[in-house]
């Protein structure tokens, strides 16, 4: 199982400036745990109280994971995950 994960600029300090990293897991939740085990601290930037943070967008291939079951979204070998901080404010 190998999933490509695209990391936004703001989280690259966790990935030694790598734009793209590899992770494993059958669900988004598992992929995030796997990412956090490789790049300590990144999980906390994505999750809050066990759910995806409201202003972090995650896509599997081209689909927003909120339409795929959020953390329970299924991920398969060869999928590409993109993480993007929301562009939002008041």
């Amino acid at each position, binding site marked *: 199982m190998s999933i490509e994960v695209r990391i936004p600029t703001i989280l690259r300090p966790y990935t030694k400036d790598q734009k793209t990293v590899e992770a494993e897991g059958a669900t988004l939740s598992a992929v995030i745990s796997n990412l956090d085990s490789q790049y300590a601290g990144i999980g906390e930037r994505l999750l809050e109280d066990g759910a995806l943070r409201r202003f972090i*967008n995650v896509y599997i291939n081209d689909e927003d994971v909120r339409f795929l079951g959020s953390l329970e979204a299924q991920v398969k070998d060869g999928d590409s995950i993109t993480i993007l901080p929301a562009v939002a404010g008041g």
Partner: protein
Amino acid sequence: MVLEISRAFADAMLEQSRAEYPDECCGVFLGPIGSGKPVRHKPMVNAAHSPTFYEFDPKDLLALYREADDNDEEIVVIYHSHTETDAYPSRTDIAYAGEPGAHYVLVSTRKEIAPTTELRSYRIIDGEVTEEPVIILD
């Protein structure tokens, strides 16, 4: 840091902010990676359709980053309008600022200052706001 932006681009932001009033408007300027220059304007839809909040639609956001990648561009400026308050980042602007390399531009359409409109630029990094000079190029 200084933001240098053309008169036409500055005017375009101000026009959009008036056109979309009373909602906040938003958008970006893209430029070649590493150039720091705003060369392509992309107005965005405020998916929140609100006078007090703005948010790019998540689908538009992904399309924007894909397009930038394909064109070897980066987001140089992220702008939005404040409809009744100063052109200064709000608490939520600071909390959600996720592009440490971008100039965050705020324009204000508050009535006391109409028809002139404020346009100011900031860096927002780790909750720290630093205002920077704006040079409008004629």
